[in-house]
């Protein structure tokens, strides 16, 4: 390897090293684990402080808009429920309505409620329920 190539490789190594350091240093702070409501509950006190993403369907009638955009609602996953308290600054997605499939990211509090800083939601469609009544796609 000649000197010029060496210089280039050295320069590249410095850049790569810096990027990898950056990537690793902030990785754990923003990492969140996907967990179901039963899994989260089963973890008990070990779940405290751990950033997680939980998914579930919004229990109808539980969405309450409190002061300054704080919103509470319950989600349900296979019969297991979880109370979510949204404290994030971003406006909640409009798709968060009764029965919507919601994903909440945040941490489990000591009292068993979940404090979310991010909520995503997908509407459950009325059309899909039509399928359940026996509608199929023709072959």
């Amino acid at each position, binding site marked *: 390897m000649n000197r010029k190539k060496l210089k280039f490789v050295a320069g590249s190594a410095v850049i790569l090293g810096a990027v990898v350091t950056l990537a690793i240093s902030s990785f754990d702070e923003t*990492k969140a684990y996907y967990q179901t409501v039963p899994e989260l509950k089963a973890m008990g006190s070990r779940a405290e402080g751990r950033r997680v993403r939980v998914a579930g369907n919004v229990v109808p009638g539980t969405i309450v808009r409190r002061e300054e955009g704080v919103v509470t609602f319950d989600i349900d996953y296979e019969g297991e429920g979880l109370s979510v308290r949204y404290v994030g600054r971003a*406006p909640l997605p*409009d798709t968060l*309505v009764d029965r919507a499939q919601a994903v909440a990211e945040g941490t489990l509090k000591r009292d068993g409620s979940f404090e979310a800083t991010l909520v995503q939601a997908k*509407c459950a469609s009325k059309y899909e329920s039509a399928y359940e009544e026996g509608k199929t*796609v023709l072959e």
Partner: protein
Amino acid sequence: MHHLGNFALMAILVFAAYAVLASLLGVWKKNARLTESAERALLACTALSTTACFSLVALLLRSDFRFEYVASYSNRDLPFFYKVASLWAGNDGSLLFWAWLLLLFSGIVVATNRRKNRELMPYVVATLGAIALFFTYMNFWVCNPFEQLGVMTGEGPQPWAPEDGRGLNPLLQHPIMAIHPPILYTGYVGFVIPFAFCIAALATGRLGAEWITSTRRWTLVAWAFLGTGLLLGGRWAYVELGWGGYWAWDPVENAALLPWLTSTAYLHSVMIQERKGMLKVWNVSLVIITYLLCVFGTFLTRSGVVSSVHAFAESDFAKIFLIFIALAAGASAALVFHRLPALKSENELDSMMSRESAFLFNNLLFLVACFAVLWGTMYPVLSEAIQGEKATVGPPWFNDVNVPLGLGLLALTGIGPLLAWRKSSLDSLRRNFTWPLVMGVLTGVILAALGMRQAYALICFALSAFVIGTIVQEFHKGAKARRVHRGGSYPGALLDLTLVNTRRYGGYVVHFGIVLIFIGVAGSAFDTEKKADLVAGQSIDIRGYQVKFLGLDEGRTKNYEWMSAKLEVTKNGKLIGTFAPQKHFYLASQQPTSEVRRHATFQEDLYMVFAGVTDDDKTTVQIFVKPLVRWVWLGAIVVFLGTIVTLVPAKRELRLARKVEAVKQSLLVESKKKYEVA
């Protein structure tokens, strides 16, 4: 099953398969008639695909709810415009649209290469035919948009149609959404042409400049459309999703960013190949990777492997798609490996202080950014596979890694063009860098003295000033030199200069646009936001603005019911106007959406969201002040215009082309004369 669209799809399968086989057989048997018939077969596919696409549009326009796709993505009262846009609202339809663009571009390539690139064309046609075959296969068997609904009765399944459709997702009912997907897709699909030519070059061993020059315009157009599509997506998120931002590192945004990063790297590194015959392996690899990332992005958007706000419903086509990507990657890699000896570099790197080395570092940064974004995006899948626990990383991580890389690239935007090819002398460095550096440093010092403490933003503004300094200097120097030789006015010399070397000066315009985008993005370091529950008469004070809540209003249209919060905005006591951010409730889909209102200036955007009504009947209003956002959109327009400049044939090229044509004509006349004499 018995629908025109389905017959068209079946016919494409036949014709595309024929195109692939006839093309390859034609090369093998050295039979020009066979390869030409393959080209015609591909043209037939273009026509058939157009038929399939338009027949689905016709079904949408007629609100024919016997078809599952129509019933799922439109409804009777949907405006005409959005009925057409429903074509790309769902997985099945958008894949049909994708295949149509692919075949449309293929048709253009066949039509424009009747007499050019004859050695490459058979392989180009075979590649395009094979890709069309795959997408049409998917469209016919896996996600067919022409499937009809049925209901089970005692006598077996009977056709069934609902009274009304489920409606287009209200978030997609926005003018930008009607143009964002076609523009983004044009970018995505457009890279298939450079890819096909690259494969043809590898297959034939004609690895010179031929395939690169033949696809330069395709590459640039695809690149420009991909970038514009990305930013239109950002603009849509900004004005329609109502969370006050335009980029969230969402998997689907990332999926489109990845090929943009690699193609931008390619646009730069290819210049080294044109100039010096270096980096040949690297360049074919970048073209291949870009195309594979385009296909991968298409897959990522639809498969639901990474949960995302965008994802289409999960479909079981993931496996087939991955097999296709793996096959394409394997075949490409084998071809590159096979041609490694022929792809040997003709030159070596001369010096660190050279244009080449700036381009190499540029490529390194683009590729590192691409890898980081890919890693972060795929982390949920990777972590589950490796650690058995699915985890995700958030936007802060993407920012931490990509902001420094972006700033490095911004610096190179200024440095690269000022360095000479091969080696820059100390003297030329001093001549070229003094003024821009002074501008950059002065900007940094002044902003710091004014109290700016956000390090990244400060660096970004200083670098932006430096880069703009280099661009202005380049134009000025060129215009001055031109006036010395040819006289004329200064603006005339500027225009002339650009027209003589459209690639170079168009490139500077693109760079200028990129700098504007950087300035706009840096503005986000100074965002502020306030949220409050108000009763009529109360107000929010934020950064000199006073936003007073006047009261609620409501009404309905055929498509939705709406509610709005009337806001009166004054700045430093001066009335700016009244705004009414709304909530819509769409009747067909039973979905609410927020309609934000903005007061936009070049200084900052005032962004107003009607967040809802609390249980004690107060109105929640959220106000964002977002400095410099407008520069992002302005920059995007400048980038697009700059790309158009680079596409204009340079005056020199035109003169040369005219000469060649004249010589051709005279030869033709002579040969005719000879023929007549004989």
